[in-house]
């Protein structure tokens, strides 16, 4: 039997019993659509988290003072001593590493910011010009901190958009002077609105040069150092370099903690991937149900079409050909159901995107392959029994009864 004839024959059968065909297509379609939509939700959540992390900066390595390790040795903490401070000199020593593109030392404190009669308490961040690139910040007006030796500073500052509007109202803030503590700073830039991003809100801060912050808060101690590795592949080397350079500067003590953005993201990734896989598998159970439906319908078909099967045998069909006829039918149903399911799933995904535009709903590639594949495999597996029964049918008996 030729393939085209086989398909044509199966097509005639499917067209001959429309309601049966539609029922199976519906069941298969719902199963596939469920898998696609559920995994799109899971993957959307995963990408959302990944984007949020990405907005912190890329290839980020964060250096914190103190060793946050619960293992028994506690190498950094000597008896009766607090961990050594992380200093600007430590940060500048990182220039030696070839794996590091740039870094920004950070000091953070709270200050009263005054402009004219208005005043407001905000977090004040001391850093260098590199911070802007590392954190992917954007300016609404003016410039970011000027480059230069971080040991010396100019009396300038950059303010968040909310701080600017609270201190200056609708008046232009650029070029105005503000007072923080006992020092005066000229506003040289206003940051673009960024909103909440992983807990820190750049709309509500003021950024001053590092040396100014050291003087303001009377401290040499850095809050942390943000390091950007040259590439994703360089992250482990950057981490190792940071640990080694600072250990040497700290007389061999490992008294800092180095976190890579990658490691944190990987943890989230694992959790959310597992979640997506789990809910996707649960949705795939509906495909199993569709498979059982196909089997039942096929078994009924074998009974209903006894005479036809007997006739085909009398006309010279082999058992294999009869099986093939049934498998082709099941395969067409599965393909049709899978296609319908993919379309409905895509419509559902579009609907979800309309409802929550900020979440990138997107079924993962493996779900787009696995869902139709599962539909096809279940359909074929559940047709084995009916097809065998049909092939074994005794033609004489099948033809004898009217």
């Amino acid at each position, binding site marked *: 039997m*030729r393939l085209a004839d086989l398909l044509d024959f199966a097509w*005639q059968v499917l067209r001959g019993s429309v309601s049966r065909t539609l029922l199976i297509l519906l069941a298969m379609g719902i199963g596939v659509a469920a898998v696609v939509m559920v995994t799109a939700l899971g993957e959307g959540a995963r990408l959302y988290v990944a984007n949020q992390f990405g907005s912190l900066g890329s290839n980020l390595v964060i250096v914190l003072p103190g060793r946050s390790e619960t293992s028994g040795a506690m190498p950094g903490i000597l008896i009766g001593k607090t961990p050594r401070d992380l200093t600007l000199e430590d940060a500048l020593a990182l220039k030696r590493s070839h794996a590091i593109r740039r870094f920004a030392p950070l000091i953070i404190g709270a200050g009263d910011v005054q402009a004219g009669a208005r005043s407001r308490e905000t977090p004040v961040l001391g850093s260098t010009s590199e911070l802007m690139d590392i954190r992917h910040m954007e300016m609404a007006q003016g410039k970011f901190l000027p480059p230069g030796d971080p040991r010396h500073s100019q009396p300038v500052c950059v303010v968040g958009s909310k701080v600017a509007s609270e201190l200056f109202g609708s008046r232009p803030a650029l070029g105005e002077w503000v007072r923080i503590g006992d020092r005066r700073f000229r506003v040289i830039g206003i940051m673009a609105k960024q909103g909440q991003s992983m807990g820190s809100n750049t709309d509500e801060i003021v950024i001053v040069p590092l040396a100014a912050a050291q003087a303001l808060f009377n401290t040499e101690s850095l809050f942390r150092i943000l390091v950007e590795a040259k590439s994703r592949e360089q992250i482990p080397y950057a981490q190792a370099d940071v640990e080694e350079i600072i250990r040497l500067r700290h007389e061999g003590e490992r008294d800092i903690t180095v976190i890579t953005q990658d490691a944190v993201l990987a943890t989230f990734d694992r959790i959310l991937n597992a979640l997506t896989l789990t809910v996707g598998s649960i949705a795939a159970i509906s495909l199993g149900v569709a498979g059982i439906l196909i089997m039942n319908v096929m078994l009924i078909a074998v009974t209903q079409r006894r005479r036809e099967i007997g006739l*085909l045998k*009398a*006309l010279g*069909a*082999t058992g294999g*050909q009869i099986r093939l006829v049934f498998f082709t039918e099941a395969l067409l149903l599965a393909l049709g159901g899978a296609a319908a399911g993919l379309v409905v799933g895509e419509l559902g995904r579009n609907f979800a995107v309309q409802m929550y535009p900020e979440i990138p709903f997107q079924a993962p590639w493996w779900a787009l392959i696995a869902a139709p594949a599962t539909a096809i495999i279940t359909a074929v597996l559940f047709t084995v029994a009916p097809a065998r029964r049909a092939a074994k049918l005794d*033609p004489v008996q099948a033809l004898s009864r009217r």
Partner: protein
Amino acid sequence: MIRLSGIARTFLVGGEAVHALRAVDLSITPGEYLSIMGPSGSGKSTLLNIIGLLDRPDAGTYELDERNVTALSDNELARVRREKIGFVFQFFHLVPRLTALQNIELPMVLAGIDPAERKSRLARLLAEYGLEDRAGHRPDQLSGGQCQRVAIARAMSMGPTVILADEPTGNLDRHTGQEVLAVLERVHENGGTLVIVTHDPEIGGRAQRRLRMLDGAVVADEKG
């Protein structure tokens, strides 16, 4: 050439053995026109099914064209059946969702014959059996006589050497039955072997060779 020797077929019905055929010996030469008559349950259909390779005997040997077909596998039997045998049934057994043309085409489709070749054979068959203007009709749009003509055309589509008809007129009125019989007899006139099972003595009497069966055995074999 059909040669049956010692063919027996026993069915188990409710634990009891029913001897549908008891040691039947029968030879049919190519081109013969043969009728089988006998009371209901005498084994006529069983004999026809064994000749047509639809059923296997429990004992005896069957040689078709000098080849022992008793021991062939199911797949080999299907191939022989497809190439050498044409069946015509009392209840036509057309596939209801297919058109007359598609029904006639079915054996050629199963045999994997090239579509172009099928087309030319179909044109010839439709013309030969007077079905040209019925090609696109489904069985429920055809009369009994037309249905049986479609069934005969289908049986002939693979150019078989043997046509087996089990009460082909049993479901038709007298006049239509005569017509269908005339169509079947053309097979014999063209040199094919024709075996007809019938209840109707008038129809059975037209064959050159007339078999009578009783209780699973051939009790009379008249020629001429």
